[in-house]
């Protein structure tokens, strides 16, 4: 595939994304089977999930609740009456021979998602979001050799609730598409409707891609299915855009079709036309009367909705004086923000200085330690209680900055835990900062007396000599002297 030799500004790229998010319910959307990942094949497929003769679907309230939460979080409209429809097609991982989905009347209409691009913020419009059931899985490898050319069907996943979120074709580059996907991903995890585990298939994107000359009508689009990483999403779109442009510029017409992305070869491939010949024969499911959602339910979900990342970021910068970068970092995940927030609340003064201190430590030492040990926030040995205990001692000057880092490392190594953990370590190691004025003066006097040459150099105008003297005081106190006080005391001593 030759690199795009044409100027990219003669073509406009138009992308829409459809995302299938697995909702984090305990049981399936239409049956009482469990939804956990990784169980032995077909041990989580009930009679309803297997489509045994005579079984019927019953809708899970938790799935609806999560759909409402999503709709409110994106500022969409919650349809008070929505209809389930059957999408009919044959495939071994679709036991009924139809998927229960929503067609003409989905549970959520409209809504927007704001993304950050290199040109500033952009608003991406959503068309709709609807509830449907997931299909099972086809296993093509890892089957016993003795059974020949077969595919193994595992229906554990069949019936897992999905929220299909459809964006308008508002995205104009693969970078925007990825920004949208990442923002949406962070949002569904933030509001607690999806665990966001892309390796386990909790969040899957299809990209609808077309190209056109600026000002021309929309080009024919191709759908690239089942992209389950942000990197593949970007690469697949980039390939597809190049493919379409080259094809058109060589005189061809783009055929509307469904394509798969081959990550090994970094190319998209047409699916075997089975998708395109499909006539899904949608009709309202006679087993499910229309879903009615009353105002009371919507109100309740609205009041229980957590503060959303955007609003939170604004509050952190405007009311709490954090910088935009820190605010963005702290709102990357609910868990991280909650950790920060709880730590702040455990400090004596919830003021700007405290917040800045906590932010620095969370985004600094804590983040570094998490990275180093590949742990999640929930698993961190240093929790808000421990961290707050440590930061108190920094704030009240009983611990110097360098000492604090040592204490932090000790806490991370679980040498102590709980609110008094930092204190325990400080005592145990004798790390308490020396801030008694008399003690500092004595130290300074000793050093001044012991270093007449350096003192003379300072008096002769060498500022560096001052630092050397400070260094001597710190050394004499094994690092425990309060540096600011040492500075002030030494200045006083030398001035006199």
């Amino acid at each position, binding site marked *: 595939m030759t690199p795009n030799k044409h100027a990219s500004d003669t073509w406009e790229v138009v992308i829409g994304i459809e995302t299938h998010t697995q909702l984090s319910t305990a*049981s399936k959307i239409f049956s009482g089977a469990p939804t956990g990942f990784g169980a032995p094949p077909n*041990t989580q497929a009930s009679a309803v999930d297997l489509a045994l003769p005579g079984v019927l679907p019953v*809708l899970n309230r*938790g799935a609806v609740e999560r759909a409402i939460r999503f709709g409110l979080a994106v500022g969409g409209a919650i349809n008070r009456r929505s209809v389930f429809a059957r999408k009919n097609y044959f495939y*071994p991982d679709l036991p009924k021979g139809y998927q229960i989905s929503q067609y003409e009347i989905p549970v959520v209409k409209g809504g927007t998602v704001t993304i950050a691009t290199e040109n500033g913020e952009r608003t991406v419009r959503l068309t709709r979001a609807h509830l449907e059931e997931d299909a099972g899985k*086809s296993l093509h490898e890892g089957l016993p050799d003795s059974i020949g050319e077969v595919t193994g069907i595992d229906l554990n996943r069949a019936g897992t609730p999905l929220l299909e979120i459809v964006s308008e074709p508002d995205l104009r580059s693969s970078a925007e598409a990825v920004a949208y996907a990442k923002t949406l991903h962070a949002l569904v995890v933030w509001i607690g409707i999806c665990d966001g585990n892309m390796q386990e298939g909790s969040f899957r994107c299809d990209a609808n891609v077309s190209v056109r000359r600026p000002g021309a009508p929309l080009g024919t689009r191709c759908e690239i299915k089942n992209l389950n990483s942000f990197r593949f999403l970007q690469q697949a779109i980039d390939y597809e855009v190049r493919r379409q442009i080259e094809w058109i510029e060589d005189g061809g017409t783009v055929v509307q079709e469904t394509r798969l992305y081959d990550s090994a070869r970094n190319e998209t491939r047409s699916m075997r036309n089975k998708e395109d010949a499909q006539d899904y024969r949608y009709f309202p499911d*006679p087993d*499910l009367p*229309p879903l*009615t959602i009353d105002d009371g339910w919507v109100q309740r979900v609205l009041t229980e909705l957590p503060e959303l990342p955007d609003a939170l970021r604004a509050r952190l910068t405007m009311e709490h004086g954090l910088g935009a970068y820190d605010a963005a970092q702290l709102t990357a995940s609910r868990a991280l923000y909650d950790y920060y927030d709880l730590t702040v609340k455990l400090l004596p003064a919830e003021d700007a200085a405290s917040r800045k201190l906590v932010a620095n430590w969370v985004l600094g030492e804590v983040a570094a330690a998490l990275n180093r040990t590949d742990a999640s926030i929930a698993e961190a040995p240093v929790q808000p209680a421990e961290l707050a205990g440590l930061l108190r001692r920094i704030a009240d000057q009983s611990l110097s900055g360098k000492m604090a880092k040592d204490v932090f490392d000790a806490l991370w190594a679980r040498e102590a835990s709980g609110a008094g953990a930092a204190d325990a370590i400080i005592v145990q190691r004798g790390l308490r900062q020396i801030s008694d004025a008399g003690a500092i003066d004595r130290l300074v006097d000793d050093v001044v007396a012991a270093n007449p040459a350096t003192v003379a150099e300072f008096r002769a105008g060498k500022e560096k000599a001052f630092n050397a003297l400070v260094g001597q005081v710190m050394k004499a106190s094994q690092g425990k002297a309060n540096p600011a006080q040492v500075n002030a005391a030494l200045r006083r001593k030398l001035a006199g």
Partner: protein
Amino acid sequence: MSLSTADIERLAKLARIDIDADEARDVRDKLDAILGLVNQLQAIDTTGVTPMAHAQDVMLPLRDDVVTEADRHVDYQRGAPAVADGLYLVPKVIE
């Protein structure tokens, strides 16, 4: 309006039911008769009439989000056409 054999073949493909040429002809004749019966509906004026998808206007009942089903795959797979290691087996599907 009459169905062609191509129509019958398309329907049979959609419905995944093999039919041979004789059957297709017989099915086409019978389907034509049935559709003749059904086409009477075209003459009726139904402007503004709400379709009746359910016998009564009931609300969709909702189930609490709790696990209620235990693993019964041994029972359910007894008598299955082709099973190995708990998986249902079908001819290899190439994607």
